[in-house]
């Protein structure tokens, strides 16, 4: 969905995009393709009974994670909700540990303890993967607070859905972010729906969702999420505002999910969304197709290379599924680790008193 607020400037020409080498552009394109292939493969094996719980696919939204995260430097951090596979791969997590996590294996990024909604890679500045709607928004504030406290010139990108904006904790976070001058950028990934509820049925607002930021004297912008260049150009401004001026921003990135809320959502096609609406997005706003057209026009990408990238991603995802399948499952003993740092590290503190109460 493109928003009325969003314009059609030449984002490819903005300095931050001009600075991209052809190699880097291909890399960004590849990342989007890898996310999509990873997820298609996940879907296949989810349906094959290899995973538990929910599977929230990111397909259709790839330019948001890839575009925004591509702007991250050493001191920029990321945190998101449960629809986290795209962000995880975009920060550089491997398909193996991600797939293995969904398979609930010891080799998973969270040792099979978190599952699809809870991917983490602090070494890559990625702090999850959070299942409680809106719950990540004060945490993202805290990461950004920490950066400022430590005197690092960085920011935190904190993602949330269009439905999540109605959680109180988000508003508390916005007030504090503005009041304290916290370098956090809230990215509303507006895919138009929270489960089966359209944006109109869940939120009251003026103009657009991001405009709620005005209530807290916070800058905001709306972005067409099908265009990776636009995502980068506008997000860069917000990130610089955070890093240099310690000022927060709320960005609303209009996007779309092709699949249901989770795989269990059978009503997403023909129920609360028309097949035409879905088809229109796929045909006219698909972020991978849009970027492909741009890169082909630039002479950076060819059909052959695109096919090769896709095939490689598919192979990589299949290999990840194999890796996950062959990995060992957690043991009963594993249930009891990672509860307390002190216990895991067998510190003196961990040896005083009972920490666990199993009969």
């Amino acid at each position, binding site marked *: 969905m493109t928003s009325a607020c969003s314009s059609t400037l030449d984002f490819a020409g903005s300095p931050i995009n001009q600075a991209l080498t052809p190699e880097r552009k291909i890399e960004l394109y590849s990342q989007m393709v890898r996310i999509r292939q990873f997820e298609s493969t996940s879907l296949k094996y989810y349906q094959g009974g290899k995973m538990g719980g929910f599977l929230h696919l990111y397909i259709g939204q790839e330019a948001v994670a890839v575009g925004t995260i591509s702007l991250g430097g050493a001191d920029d951090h990321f945190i998101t909700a449960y629809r986290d596979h795209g962000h995880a791969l975009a920060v550089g997590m491997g398909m193996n540990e991600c797939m293995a996590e969904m398979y609930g294996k010891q080799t998973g990024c969270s040792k099979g303890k978190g599952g699809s909604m809870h991917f983490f890679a602090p070494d890559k500045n990625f702090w999850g993967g959070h299942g409680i709607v809106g719950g990540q928004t004060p945490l993202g504030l805290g990461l950004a607070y920490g950066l400022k406290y430590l005197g690092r010139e960085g920011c935190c990108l904190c993602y949330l859905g269009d439905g999540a904006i*109605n959680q109180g904790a988000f508003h508390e976070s916005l007030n504090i972010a503005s009041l304290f001058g916290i370098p956090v950028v809230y990215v509303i990934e507006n895919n138009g729906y929270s489960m089966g509820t359209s944006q109109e049925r869940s939120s009251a607002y003026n103009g657009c969702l991001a405009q709620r930021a005005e209530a807290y004297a916070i800058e905001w912008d709306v972005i067409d999420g099908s265009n990776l260049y636009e995502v980068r150009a506008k997000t860069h401004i917000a990130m610089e505002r955070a890093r240099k001026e310690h000022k927060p921003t709320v960005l609303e990135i209009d996007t779309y999910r092709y699949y249901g809320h989770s795989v269990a959502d059978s009503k997403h096609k023909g129920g609360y969304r028309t097949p035409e609406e879905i088809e229109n997005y796929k045909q006219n706003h698909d972020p991978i197709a849009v970027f492909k057209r741009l890169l082909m026009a630039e002479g950076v990408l060819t059909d052959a290379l695109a096919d090769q990238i896709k095939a490689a991603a598919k192979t990589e995802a299949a290999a990840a599924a194999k890796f996950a399948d062959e990995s060992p499952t957690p043991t009963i003993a594993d249930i009891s680790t990672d509860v307390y740092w002190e216990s895991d590290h067998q510190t003196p503190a961990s040896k005083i008193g009972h920490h666990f109460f*199993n009969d």
Partner: protein
Amino acid sequence: MSRILTYREALREGLDEELARDPNVVIMGEEVAQYNGAYKVTEGLWNKWGDKRIVDTPISEAGFIGMGIGASMLGIRPVMELMFWSFHSVAFDQLVSNAACVRYMSGGLCNCPIVVRGPANGGTGVGATHSHIPEGLFAAFPGLKVCAPATPADAKGLIKAAIRDNDPVYVMENTLLYGNTGEVPDPADGDFVIPLGLADLKREGADVSLIAHGRSVIHALAAAETLQAEHGINCEVLDLRSIRPLDVDAILKTVKKTNRVVLVDESKPFGGVSAMVAMLIQEHAFDDLDAPIKRVCSIDAPAIYSPHIEHEQLPNPRRIVDKVLTFA
């Protein structure tokens, strides 16, 4: 005459009957109306009852549960769905400070006839934050009532009692039971309500009492069969059904009969419903116990995701059998 219904259908029938009975009953929650409910408990109710009686809310649990409580003071009887009971964490103030205390703080002037319901269990591969087991947590607050049905008939009977009750009642359902089937009396044979506070002896036995609620009852019954068949141990299974009010008499009765108790409770072992039941038993039936009261709870860690292992963290028939055998 009774019919075979799923637990889900039984709940829905209970809701539907109460919607018909009292025009002030209103169902609200995320996706309960047009989407038919995340777990389809409310399927068809919006079609039948329309926008006024079946209300979709934004993802604002503090907001809409607080709204329900405010409305209840005026005489509305909101039945609010938490898509997962785990989301109590974002509406905790409403649940324990408003609902539990408003009657008291007003010296009895305000009433709060609300119901909050939804699934309250682990075992569905959704990780720690979605798998809290809050029966004991809420039962600890005087002013609140808590129940946890294990069968379709109990689900229907208790949801109806909860809706008619003039105090806040939190109904803890279980996603893993929604599809279970069982006999439910025919509405033609009269209004079927199971009072809160009445335990149900689901299996008679002489050797050991298994006391449980919710899905743990099903596990206890399975374990009892194994223990009978393979070890000749005859277990009695008491289903608490209601946590507060609690049928202390039924608990003491089975203890006096068997003199040996295993409590089965999906709660984490620090506290939970079972620590309280143990406290009551040792206090009131001290001389009837031949051995310490034992428990089968969840293994003491946040809920693990891995589908390969999560059922080992929860009570299950094998763990119950093993625990009973330690009496030998």
